[in-house]
């Protein structure tokens, strides 16, 4: 029974706690499951612990003097809690970090080259690049200009494309919509959905823009103060009145029946 669940979930976080600098408890027992092949959203306001959750999975915590102090993370059934960050990329976990962070002084083409896994042949890399330029035609046009001068939307596309070069099985994105015009968010989310369907890449999407995120994911988790306070299908979350009030700009009656798990202790986002 347990093994069956493992096989269905590409990622499973069980009661994960993260400490920064050995003192700052940033997430306090987060459990999140990403079923293989699905798109899942992590929602929540600023400082809730969303980025920390992704860093725990990708191993980038190490770079910020953070560590997992409790709980475990399994990827495809293997415990990765102690695996080095660079080896996690090799296993198929790629984290598109907050704020785009393309290699500014490199061209988009070089940005893609930089992410090539060790041992990827030149022809495989070129094929990979062409596939990425097909997903993001805007990048193809500017493949040899300096990445630092691309627009925000193009940089986000490049950051996603660069992650795809690493051949991820699980793609984690940290607020890809931040600061982008709505039509661009729609374009990028549409492409993410296409990548998910065509490549079979599972997606863990961190967003403050719940409205856009809930359109493309199957389930969502709401994080507040380092804890998961709500988990349900996208439909259930969309019709939840708290979510509506704070994220979707509406205010219908609460419908708790479709929400699998709701452990609100105090009003989140107060």
């Amino acid at each position, binding site marked *: 029974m347990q093994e069956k669940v493992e096989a269905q979930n590409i990622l499973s976080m069980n009661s994960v706690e993260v400490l920064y600098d050995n003192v700052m408890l940033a997430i306090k027992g987060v459990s999140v499951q990403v079923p293989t092949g699905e798109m899942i959203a992590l929602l929540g306001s600023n400082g809730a612990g969303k980025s920390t959750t992704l860093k725990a999975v*990708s191993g*980038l915590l190490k*770079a*910020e*003097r953070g560590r997992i102090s409790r709980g475990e993370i399994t990827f495809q059934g293997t415990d990765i809690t102690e695996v080095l*960050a*660079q080896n996690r*990329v*090799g296993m198929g976990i*790629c*984290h*598109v*970090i907050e704020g785009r*962070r*393309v*290699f*500014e*002084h*490199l061209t988009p083409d*070089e*940005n893609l*080259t*930089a*992410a*090539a*896994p060790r041992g990827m042949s030149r022809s495989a890399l070129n094929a990979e690049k062409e596939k990425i330029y097909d997903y993001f035609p805007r990048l193809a046009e500017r493949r040899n200009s*300096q990445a*630092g*001068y691309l*627009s*925000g939307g193009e940089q986000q596309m490049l950051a996603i494309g*660069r*992650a795809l*070069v*690493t051949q991820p099985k699980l793609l984690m994105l940290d607020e890809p919509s931040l600061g982008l015009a709505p039509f661009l968010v729609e374009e990028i989310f549409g492409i993410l959905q296409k990548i998910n369907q065509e490549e079979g890449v599972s997606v863990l999407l961190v967003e403050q823009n719940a409205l856009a995120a809930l359109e493309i994911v199957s389930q969502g988790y709401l994080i507040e103060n380092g804890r998961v306070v709500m988990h349900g299908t996208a439909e259930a979350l969309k019709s939840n009145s708290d979510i509506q009030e704070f994220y979707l700009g509406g205010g219908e009656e609460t419908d708790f029946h479709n929400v699998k798990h709701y452990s609100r202790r105090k009003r989140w986002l107060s």
Partner: protein
Amino acid sequence: MDWVFLSELAINGALTGLLYSLFAIGLVLIYKASSVPNLSQGGLTMVGAYVVLALSHDAGLPLWLAIPLAAVIMFGLGFGIERVALRRLAGRPVVMILMLTLGLDIFLRGTTLAIWGGTSRSVDLGVSYEPLFLGDIFVSRIHLVGAGVALALFVAFMLFFRTRTGIKLRAIADDYMASWSVGISVERGVGLSWALASVVAVAAGVIWGEIQGVDQALSLLLLKGLTVAVLGGLDSILGAVIAGIILGVVENVGADLLDPLVGGGSRELIVAAVLILTVMIRPHGLFGRHDIERV
């Protein structure tokens, strides 16, 4: 004004300048990956020269074998420095890494003094000291050889930074965190930049050792090398080459004009003025990258 004499000053200045570039390329390699000027590059250059002497004069190997072997040894030493010393400093303030390189320089100078003593030794490259005339202009053969080595290294590194490994190194120079996020081993990249800079140190050590002898004074090349690197923009190899030529010409021609007026010693003043003015007027140097303003 005697134009032949002036051209001779300028050409020999440019050649000497390229020898500064040869040194400065090592500084640029490390700056690109670690964002610090490596204050131990002078010490490394001196060690490079001593290792060549140890292999050739002491162990009896021919120079054509001793030099590449020294390059291999120094390549390993560069990696070792990252592994033993720098890795612990990851994520610390850059000034701490700078202080580490200073400590390393003092360490290397002390070690070479303890092992090889203070007397100056010569490399004996076998380059002729017969005067070489290009038309009416006299040039030094060893300077010509050194300038050729500098240009060859320049071309080699320009090509290297277009390879996949080179692109990964440039990515590391841009953003450590983003590099980690796509599986680039930042640690190995920084180690490689030190290893390459140590190989450059062998080249600079041999050429400069041939010119001025191998002793503790070799490590003082750091001052002119740093001036060239800063003028070039610290992270630009092309900048280091052009800035080297500029500094060499300005120094040689300027000293000839100024020395009669101030009674000698104007070379150091010119170098100091170039360094100070660059930092004041153009802190990015000639070819250094500005941080791009995000749109």
